């Protein structure tokens, strides 16, 4: 939900910017910054979640809490950096497209880390029996959260 929320927030701001001709004739270049930075990870998540739902619709799965927190933290940092790159544009002496282009320097490592952690997160799930759901969920969050 964090990833989808972050994506829709950033995309919403950029849609507003485009509607106000913020990027002029170079709107395509701005979207070429956003989409490769988020869509691959979102596609990975959608694919894994749909596959899991189809194969084991009634099974609950859990992961290690610390692993979950690490993945969550890196994801939040990455999404924050994405949003920061967008929101700092009015204050930066660097022009928006140059700022976006330069942001790849610090976004790429975090994107790699976040995608890697998410991939590991999804394949490290353990299946729980339905009878133990209540007890397990108290200490181990589900990946859908």
């Amino acid at each position, binding site marked *: 939900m964090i990833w989808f929320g972050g994506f829709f927030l950033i995309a919403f*701001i950029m849609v*507003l*910017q485009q509607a*106000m*001709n*913020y*990027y*002029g*004739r*170079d709107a395509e*270049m*701005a979207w070429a910054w956003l989409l490769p930075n988020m869509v691959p990870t979102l596609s990975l998540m959608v694919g894994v979640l749909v596959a899991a739902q189809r194969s084991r619709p009634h099974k609950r799965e859990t992961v290690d809490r610390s692993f979950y927190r690490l993945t969550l933290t890196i994801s939040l940092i990455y999404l924050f950096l994405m949003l920061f790159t967008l*929101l700092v*544009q*009015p*204050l*930066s*002496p660097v*022009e*928006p*497209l*140059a700022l976006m282009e330069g942001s790849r320097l610090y976004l790429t490592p975090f994107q790699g880390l976040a995608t890697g952690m998410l991939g590991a997160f999804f394949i490290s799930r353990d299946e729980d029996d339905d009878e133990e759901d209540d007890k397990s969920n108290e200490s181990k969050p589900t990946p859908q959260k």
Partner: protein
Amino acid sequence: MRNLFAGVLVCALLHTPSAEAHLSYGTYRIDESGTRAVRLFALAISQRQPLVVSVISDDFMPRLYLVSPDKRVWSEANATNGRASITIDDAVPGEWYVAVRPVDVQSAGEFALTVEPAGGPVPLGPALSSDAKAALTALRRRSGAEERIGLDVGNSRGLQGPGVDAPPDGGDHVAAPSAEPGAKALSPLLPWPPPEPSARMVVPRMLLANPATLGDVDDRLRAALRVAGYDDLGYFAVPNGFAAVTRLERIEPTGEPVADASRWQMTVPADPSFSLFDYLRALLTAQTGHFRVIAFVVTPTPFTGSPGEVDAVSARRWASTGRNALPPPMRSQVFTADYSVTALVYEFSKIRGERSVHYDLPGDLSATTHLEASGILAALQN
């Protein structure tokens, strides 16, 4: 008097450590006497790049030859507009040769030769080697005009251009006709006729304080421009006169130059504001920057703007690539009643979120407004 063909050409100053200073542009002459019926130039390419070689003449229909280092020969002739051009998409490094002759071997006159690299300057070689002579022999056989070929190989020292002294031996540089004294010392305004401006106006003669010579006009313009904050001018040659071009500057939508240091930058800086409303407005709405270049053209020749857009990056370099001052021979040229001073304003705009700058045609403001807002008109009136 033969027509002097207009220098509708890029002037890029090129240097190579192993040679004298060379340009990628030059004016030359085919003599009636037959001693220079073909002109040959050596061209040293240091890096692989696209290359365009062009020749243009008002006096004869030119045929252009280009010989690559591996001795392949291109030729081009155009019998309709006096221009021939050869484009090599991927010119390999090495010593190339360029030859020019009239299609009609009985013709003679002046021509301009340009080498326009697409990816940076092309160093031009100073001298011909034995390979050049071999290439020349091949050209002579192909041209079918051996009896007219009188190559002055010793003088083929690369393309000499305006603004650079001719080689000691007189070289290939051709003096401008006497009707345009001093013109050879200035690079021609690119292009001529000048591009269609965003706005233009003829400066009233009364504002020029009754000048007697072009030098007086230059002094008057330069003084007014200095008062208005334009210290850096680039001078170019136009038919029987000159053009003084200001640096590209950032202006307010009303035409006044911006007050801060960003005046001479081709960027749209962020609006330093700290209120939430201003921040949101800056985040979501387009901020447009306006830029302009002003060219004062002093010539007795009426002209119209040539169609086509002006590239802001090129316009930005006009002032720096032009001469820093008017050459003495041109300064003493009489400013007759035929002369006029025309201000051409080239206006550009750029949205902050965009990468490129766009040429505004027509501009948002009149030329009078530009000159008033810039302070030039007031300085001329004083």
